[in-house]
């Protein structure tokens, strides 16, 4: 593969690999290579020839519930379907991780539907050239009008899509301009390091607007109802059959031009709610891919050696125990408001036991290695805390609650496999400090309310950000805006200041590193949440399946898979 644009050059120059560098370079790039398309197709030709292979995959604990990822209530697994059914203007590059697994490369933006793009001189807009030969599944050519309609839809429809677009400062339909049939311009409201990246995430899909328009109504101006169950895409796969909660069949779109034609001809995604059955199906060879593995299965299937396993630490993601930091909780005094208590809890965590028995070592430990004075902006990074009951007892003795107290620990039933043993171990361990922990198992749906309400003293949290920046993570998990994922409801103006400063600056800049290290240090000292591990995303495949690549959106990309 020949390195292509200036993006790469600047990345290569940067000491720390950060996307911001790439963006900076990108924004200053006069002319992104125009032969990007031929490049990518030559990339494709290096892959295997398209075959009529059929791939079956099982999924559980959530099944794609819509074909339209802009719709309210569309779940995560649906993004995987949308990802291959629809194209975006750009996509990310590919890299090899140290363990040999392929991963997306967030430092590289590559053409998808757009064959090239150009930053404006003033850096306040970008102009995309669309592929001339690209068509939708119904054969209609992809035009800039379609792109505009799709972008308008994403910023207008509300809910998560609009929110995510906003994260990249894409907020207003006025920003999107049709220059000609195959030229599309995005005007920036303000310089934002996330804008370009945000156009490569799953949200801004390009929809066949002409196909949708007959189905628009006043009540449903964006055709959510129709798109919910119909295919209006131009992606590598088109819809075969969609039976909600049962199965989805995708077939290869032979006229796909936005990348190398996938090798697999047909993909069947099946819903199997029972984890044990999913595993049995894989072991019996009845399916090709099990994409929903418990940590235990990860460990044991890997140990069998009969299957191809890929386990990738999930970027910017942490399993943690969040303690509510407000002085008052539900009208009562809240012991966790006392920082000594929080630190004591952090020292009392049975980290290794959790790692072994709850997670079967299938995660990256985030404890015991770090220092209170971090010197890296890597995130997540391990805390300096390790299991030290003496220290914990000392701290609790110094706190306002030397004799302990009663509290409760809530977890999401959806995470039962690892969360339940974890909380039981924590309960046992905290009992030694005199902290009596009641366990509360909350059904999946209700847990979201728990997060929103912030009504529990202690919860098991599982938060990860798509965009791989520590400041992004901290903005949602530690910032005083008290977002949903700030499970501790932690509010500290000093912390906020550092987070905001980091957000405003760019990786590589000294103030960025200073602020990031600063807020990590503060997090370790204040300890509103106790990081446990960085989880891994795992997939088990039959040995004849290859080409798996990790994506930040944590869904399987069928386009890259191959089956012998």
């Amino acid at each position, binding site marked *: 593969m020949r390195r292509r644009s200036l993006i790469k050059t600047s990345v290569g120059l940067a000491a720390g690999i950060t996307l911001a560098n790439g963006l900076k370079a990108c924004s200053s790039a006069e002319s992104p290579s125009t032969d990007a398309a031929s490049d990518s197709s030559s990339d494709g030709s290096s892959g295997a020839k398209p075959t009529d292979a059929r791939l079956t995959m099982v999924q559980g604990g959530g099944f794609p519930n819509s074909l339209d990822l802009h719709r309210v209530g569309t779940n995560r697994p649906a993004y995987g379907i949308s990802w291959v059914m629809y194209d975006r203007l750009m996509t990310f590059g590919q890299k090899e991780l140290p363990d040999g697994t392929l991963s997306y490369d967030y430092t590289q933006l590559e053409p998808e539907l757009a064959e090239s793009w150009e930053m404006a001189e003033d850096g306040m807009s970008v102009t995309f050239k669309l592929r001339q030969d690209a068509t939708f599944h119904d054969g209609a050519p992809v035009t800039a009008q379609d792109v505009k309609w799709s972008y308008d839809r994403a910023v207008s429809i509300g809910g998560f899509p609009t929110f995510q677009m906003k994260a990249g400062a894409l907020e207003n339909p006025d920003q999107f301009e049709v220059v000609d049939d195959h030229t599309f311009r995005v005007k920036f409201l303000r310089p934002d390091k996330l804008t370009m990246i945000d156009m490569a995430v799953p949200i801004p899909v390009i929809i066949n607007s002409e196909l949708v328009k007959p189905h628009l109504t006043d009540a449903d101006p964006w055709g959510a109802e129709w798109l919910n169950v119909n295919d209006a895409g131009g992606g590598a796969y088109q819809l075969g059959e969609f039976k909600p909660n049962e199965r989805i069949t995708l077939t290869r779109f032979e006229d796909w031009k936005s990348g190398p034609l996938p090798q697999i001809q047909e993909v069947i995604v099946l819903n199997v709610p029972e984890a*044990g059955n999913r595993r049995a199906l894989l072991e019996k060879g009845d399916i090709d891919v099990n994409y929903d593995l418990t940590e235990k299965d990860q460990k044991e299937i890997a140990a069998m050696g009969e299957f191809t396993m890929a386990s990738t630490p999930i970027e910017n993601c942490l399993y943690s125990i969040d303690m509510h930091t407000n002085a008052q909780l539900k009208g009562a005094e809240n012991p966790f408001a006392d920082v000594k208590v929080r630190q004591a809890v952090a020292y009392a965590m049975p980290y290794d036991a959790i790692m072994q028995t709850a997670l079967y070592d299938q995660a990256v430990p985030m404890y015991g290695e770090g220092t209170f004075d971090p010197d890296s902006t890597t995130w997540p990074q391990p805390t300096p805390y390790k299991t030290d009951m003496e220290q914990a007892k000392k701290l609790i003795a110094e706190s306002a609650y030397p004799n302990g107290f009663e509290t409760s620990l809530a977890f999401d039933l959806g995470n039962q496999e690892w969360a339940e043993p974890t909380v039981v171990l924590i309960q046992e361990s905290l009992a030694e400090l005199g902290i009596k922990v009641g366990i509360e198992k909350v059904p999946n749906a209700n847990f979201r309310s728990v997060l929103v309400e912030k009504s529990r003293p202690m919860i098991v949290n599982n938060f990860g950000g798509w965009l791989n920046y520590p400041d992004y993570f901290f903005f949602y998990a530690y910032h005083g805006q008290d977002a949903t994922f700030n499970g501790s409801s932690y509010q500290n103006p000093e912390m906020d200041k550092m987070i905001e400063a980091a957000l405003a600056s760019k990786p590589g800049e000294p103030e960025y590193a200073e602020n990031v290290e600063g807020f990590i240090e503060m997090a370790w000292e204040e300890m509103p949440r106790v990081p446990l591990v960085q989880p891994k995303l795992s997939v088990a495949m039959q040995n004849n399946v290859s080409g798996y690549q990790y994506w930040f959106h944590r869904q399987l990309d069928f386009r890259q898979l191959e089956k012998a």
Partner: protein
Amino acid sequence: MTTTLKHTRYIISQNGITFGAFSLFFGFVLIAVLGNAIAPYDPLASNSAIALQPPTALHWFGTDQLGRDVLSRVIVATRLDLGIAVLAVAMSFVIGSILGTCAGYFGGWTDRIVSRCIDTLMAFPLFVLAMGLVAALGNSIENIIYATAIINLPLYTRVIRSEVLVRREAGFVEAARLTGNGDWRIMARHLFPNVLPVMMVHLSLNMGWAILNAAGLSFIGLGVQPPTAEWGIMVAEGATYIVSGEWWLALFPGAVLMLAVFCFNLLGDGLRDLIDPRMRT
């Protein structure tokens, strides 16, 4: 007292199955009473070093994913499970008896209102109703008991109502009225005790169902809160380990649960015989 004992002995000795059921039942009660005292290990103490060990001489039923002794957990769970069964059944029995007796005895509007309510309850798929109730009220042991009691209510009310209905016109009820008994006294002292033997069968069958019901709720995540040891949740959680070969997690609690339900099922006929004076000879 001695005659009662003798009678009990007679009933039990008459039927091998009843004898077995009674022995089993007393075994369970004994285990429930002793509970922690006879558990070889602390049922809640985890030990990651010995997690998921198959049955050994030290841990007869093996250990679970946290290294807790399955045998100890099964033993300790007995009290809770019997408690759930007994309380749930007792609640629906008491309320169902009152409603059913009134509806059957008074007839008319009382009957119509009670029957309508019961019909409404019956029109729900019972397990779904239990699910809904536990989901709405929160999954605690009390709520599981309430939900189980509510879904069993129609059964008791209907059975008692129809039994009272056939006896309402019986000679001994008229005789009771002739001898100066008011309605309430007739219901409480004359009708209800005569319905009791029939109810014993349902009662014991339901105890088994109550446990199964709790197990089913556990399976869909609406069971008791961890780390409480309860058969149903142990089976439900253990069931996912069957395929990976850790069969003991589900099998032992499952076997004990089955034994208990089995025992309750078989107990019914014996209990009816025990409580029915007609069986005394």
